[in-house]
């Protein structure tokens, strides 16, 4: 799904024309548009989910709460709202590796991860995650043993899934901030694991 130059400029013109129309009509407010963009470009992002993971790794009670009632536990950290109203956390263990996809469109837990990357929304990932998850993991350089079960979560409804990656070895002395710094967006989607520091 790439844009060649002529296709792109036509799109650019179309968007500008539409914005002009809707502002002219008074249907959209320009400063609201800017606030929407700023929210998702600067404020909300995977650093939120990383803090959730770091806290779960550090506090057993919080981890239990997160697994029992993810929406409430995540809301406790101030991450709520659109495309995250119904959260569910799935824990990676030695026996189970979880992977999240939306085959039908691009559903993704915005409040904890921000907007999804292009690859997550594109046809190759959406097609292959459910039929060849181990191949997908291998493409990201992630190896999962034959004795591990892979569970792929297809986000077909309004439940939004966040993977709780396994805590790597050698992190016992780390603060929550340091732990959060290790947690990648891709590990919370499930295509990667969090490597040892």
């Amino acid at each position, binding site marked *: *799904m*790439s*844009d060649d130059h002529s296709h*792109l400029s036509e*799109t*650019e013109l179309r968007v*500008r*024309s*539409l914005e002009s*129309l*809707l502002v*002219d*009509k*008074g*249907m*959209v*407010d320009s400063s*609201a*548009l*800017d*606030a*929407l*963009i700023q*929210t*998702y*470009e600067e404020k909300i*992002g995977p650093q939120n989910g990383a803090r959730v993971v770091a806290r779960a790794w550090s506090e057993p009670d919080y981890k239990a709460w997160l697994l029992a009632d993810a929406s409430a536990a995540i809301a406790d950290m101030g991450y*709520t*709202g*659109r495309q*995250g*109203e*119904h959260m569910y956390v799935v824990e990676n263990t030695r026996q189970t590796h979880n992977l999240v996809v939306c*085959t*039908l*469109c*691009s559903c993704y837990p915005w409040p904890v991860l921000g907007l999804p*990357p292009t*690859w997550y929304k*594109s*046809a*190759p*990932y*959406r*097609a*292959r995650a*459910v*039929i060849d998850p181990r191949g997908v993991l291998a*493409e990201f350089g992630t190896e999962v043993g034959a004795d*591990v*079960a*892979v*569970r*792929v*979560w*297809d986000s*077909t*409804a*309004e*439940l939004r899934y966040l993977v709780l990656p396994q805590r790597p070895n050698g992190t016992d002395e780390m603060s929550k901030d340091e732990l959060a710094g290790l947690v990648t967006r891709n590990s919370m989607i499930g295509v990667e694991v969090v490597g040892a520091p």
Partner: protein
Amino acid sequence: MNGVHDLGGMHGLGPIEAEADEPVFHHEWQRRALALTLASGAMGKWNIDMSRHARENQPPEQYLRNSYYQTWLVGLEKLLLAADLVTAGELASGQSAAPLPDDLAQRVLRAEQVAGVLGRGDQFTLDDEITATFQVGDRVRVLNNHPTGHTRAPRYARGKCGLVERDHGVFVFADENSKGRDNPVPQHIYSVNFPARELWGADATPNDCVMIDLWDGHLEAAD
């Protein structure tokens, strides 16, 4: 609909091209497309299921050729036209031919409202006390229905059997909700476990599975 958007299990789409350190947006028009879509939703003329259907309902070659935000643009134009918020003439000219009706003018999203609106999110659950059709542990089969409109039951699962692992409670049934705003149908949503070999045949990895969230309306009891 049995559209090309229903991609689960399709072959031949090539490698996953993950861009390192990808920015949130590559082009200014993408920022505007996102913001215009979210802001237009404040008019209250469509719900998320209607918007998903507007996006997916493209000819296959167009859907696969369009980038993500191009598809959002296509969807938004369709929704605005269908809701009579704009006319085809206005879309072509980029100029408004009529002011916004007063009742809609009150709904316009203001900058100071953005954080609150986004932070509150949408309402997908219903208070209706509907008895669940299925219990955890039940074996269910995905109905072999092929609606021409929007459905959240992917083709790769239709006619397949799985085990109910969780009942998430009562939600608005998306398939019906995509037809309009007026009549939310309450149904239970279940996370159903489909073994990989059930979905993909004997060559699939034995201990892998796909978890799919499905509504009462997508399922029937299996032996």
